[in-house]
């Protein structure tokens, strides 16, 4: 169903530049990793706080609010370095089960973070049983780490 889109991606001028360059892809991949580490760092600090660890001197809401800016800019950098990698070999990724798995996992992680996790982090402390933020923090950490790990595994499958 999506194949024409993948073909179109692979046919872009930028994709050709990436395929022909000897260093552009590897350098983009390396910067992608720096952006991911920054993004996961901001995720992890909020997740730790939801679990009741780490920066417990501030409220969950304050930590989540402060993390927003890093999540936004690092997320932008992750996309800016991820999309050209994808378009360069879009048809290869189309046939990679791990890539497809990673994309669905990514959608799940983004939706979870933007809805449930955001609400729970912003909620007044003590308004819900203590296991709720803990469960949300653990689920968020597991989801995002799974996204990162499946990204690394695309090379193999």
């Amino acid at each position, binding site marked *: 169903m999506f194949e024409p889109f993948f073909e179109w991606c692979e046919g872009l001028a930028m994709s050709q530049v990436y395929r022909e360059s000897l260093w552009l892809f590897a350098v983009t991949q390396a910067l992608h990793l720096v952006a991911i580490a920054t993004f996961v760092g901001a995720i992890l600090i909020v997740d730790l706080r939801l679990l009741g660890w780490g920066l417990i*001197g501030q409220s969950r809401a304050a930590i989540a609010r*402060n993390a927003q800016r*890093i999540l936004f800019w690092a997320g932008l950098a992750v996309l800016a370095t991820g999309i050209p990698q994808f378009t360069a070999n879009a048809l290869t990724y189309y046939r990679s089960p791990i890539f497809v798995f990673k994309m669905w996992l990514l959608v799940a992680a983004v939706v979870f973070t933007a809805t449930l996790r955001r609400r729970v982090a912003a909620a007044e402390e003590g308004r819900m049983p203590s296991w709720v933020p803990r469960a949300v923090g653990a689920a968020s950490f597991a989801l995002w780490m799974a996204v990162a790990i499946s990204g690394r595994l695309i090379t193999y499958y």
Partner: protein
Amino acid sequence: MPSIVPTLEWLEGLAWTTAIRESVWGYPIILTAHVASIVAFAGLIIVMDLRLFGVAFPDVPRTQIQRRLFPWQMAAFVPSTATGLLLCCIDPLRYYGNVIFRVKLVLLALAGLNALVFHLKTYPMAGQWDDDPRLRGTVRLGGGLSLLLWSAIIVSGRLTATNWFN
């Protein structure tokens, strides 16, 4: 100066390093575990550095970031280092001959030195960080240096997979 190469050859020839090197999934699993723990470890460092530098987490005092997150940073340091050393043991001669990997080792040493100086000189004066403008500059410098070094370490780690400059 005695060469390290015979030692690396001995390491590479051991039964267990050979077994992992030649197995289908051994190397990918250890490498993936390395990357996963690095992402957590470096991620914490980068965010902490952004705070020390003064561009993130304005509601959290600099001293708190260091005191409360340092244990977690160390918790992620252990698996990162363990898997990294394991990778070196499995394929020592390849890494030894890799120019970018050598650059990475130098950067790691510099980052370690920067962290050591921070812990021994800057952190003990945490009580005065906010009052003394010169000290504030030192804290920012430490955070900024660490940020640059760790970004470069991730980049060189990823590029070790290439054989550029060899």
